[in-house]
């Protein structure tokens, strides 16, 4: 929360310094937004604000809560039972993020038109999932155990392109897509049966990060790389 406050404060400061010199949309430079993909894909909410600080530059900050379920690709379980377990892992994530957008069309000022953007998310995640305990000596002892891990550090970085349209002079419709790298911090330990682990169990780490399609993992099953798509609706306030 402290980060969010700092970011918002920074943005208000830049707004007061640069705001007057730039046009925005008919003088309006402050947009309050929500991402429609958050409830649809991530079972969460995403709220953000954006400011036009230069004629073609917009900066923004926001936060999101997600509570996404992941199919657990436990290979040893599949080996034993022929399919992955029905139970899903839940990852509850709270993140604050900062975004910078460079609008590419100079003939129409921000916040309208196409843009390139970079966005960084920082947060904390709680994970509840399963772990399949393998026992090669006594296979009957094998079992699907549950585990949880709280307050591990989560990060995402997205870069891509977007397009924003203003409707009815006060509503913004913002579509963007980009390449996302997700990271769940391995140095955060979590415990299963009083044993500490420092990587994400449950076979879903490769899908953490991108919201629509993961190309695969990067790092040791601590995060995925893939395609993120956002569809944000906003209101131009002032």
């Amino acid at each position: 929360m402290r980060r969010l406050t700092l970011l918002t404060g920074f943005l208000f400061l830049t707004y007061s310094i640069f705001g007057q010199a730039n046009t925005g949309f008919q003088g309006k430079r402050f947009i309050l937004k929500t991402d429609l993909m958050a409830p649809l894909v991530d079972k969460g909410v995403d709220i953000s604000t954006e400011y036009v600080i230069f004629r073609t530059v917009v900066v923004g900050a926001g936060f999101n809560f997600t509570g996404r379920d992941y199919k657990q690709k436990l290979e040893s379980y599949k080996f034993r039972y022929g399919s992955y377990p029905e139970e899903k892992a839940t990852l509850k994530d709270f993140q604050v993020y900062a975004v910078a957008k460079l609008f590419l069309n100079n003939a129409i000022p921000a916040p309208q038109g196409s843009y390139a953007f970079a966005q960084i998310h920082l947060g904390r995640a709680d994970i509840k999932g399963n772990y399949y305990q393998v026992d090669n000596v006594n296979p009957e002892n094998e079992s699907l155990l549950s585990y949880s891990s709280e307050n591990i550090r989560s990060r995402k970085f997205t870069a891509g392109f977007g397009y924003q349209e203003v409707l009815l002079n006060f509503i913004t419709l913002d579509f963007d897509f980009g390449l996302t790298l997700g990271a769940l911090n391995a140095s955060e330990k979590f415990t299963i049966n009083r044993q500490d682990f420092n990587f994400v169990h449950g076979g879903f780490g490769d899908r953490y990060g991108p919201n629509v399609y993961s190309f695969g993992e990067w790092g040791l099953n601590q995060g995925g790389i893939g395609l993120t798509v956002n569809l944000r609706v906003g209101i131009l306030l002032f």
Partner: protein
Amino acid sequence: MNKKRYFILLLLASLFLSSCRGILRIDQTKMMGRKGNNVKRIVCLNPDYEVLISTKDQTQKSYQKSASKESTFNKMLDRNARKNGIQLQIIDNEDLNKHDASFFNDLAPLKQELLQVSYLQNFDNVRNNTSKFRLGKVIGKHEQGPLISPRFSYLADIYGTPFFSINGIATHKKPKKGKLLLLLTIPPVGIASFFFQDVDTYYYTIIADVRSAEIIYREVRQVNLRATEANLNSLLYDSFHIISK
């Protein structure tokens, strides 16, 4: 990540990049905006709204569509000028009545003169100074603008301002290119492309100072966006914002 995935990303990126064409070119005199030369009131000579539609064979002006948009355009001009502290007096042909014969001695020839001079002279031809170019935006500041005839200087007394302008919008609808390629590579986008036209919207404004008999400001911008109310409002506000500074 295999090659196919990279290809999808590249294609998406190029789609977006291709959709962000835009050019803004502003030429103005250095005197503009200086003390005594603040543009606070402009007489706008019959704003034009042109809708051009191209088919594979020809380009035609749609008179009906053009005419239906003119009054809305006038209102938008007025509103966006006011928001930037500029008073715009729009002289619209539709409002002429039988007592306005002087229009044909004063303002109609002035409009013709401004269009002619814009065609015949460049800012660069007079005395060029600094031009900045950055990402499709050019702002040139010049010692002097294209010269119009000083015989219109008396209009400054009649209208209470030396600033007279021509403002216009032209939208050009063209058949979308590369539909088949899109259909083969990204079928959903390809199918969608059959329902949308490629549209370029142009906005231009020329402001003359009849007192000094020169064009002091000329702006042309081109965006590949539809001429929706929001898009036009954004363009017009930005334009008047630059003029009012």
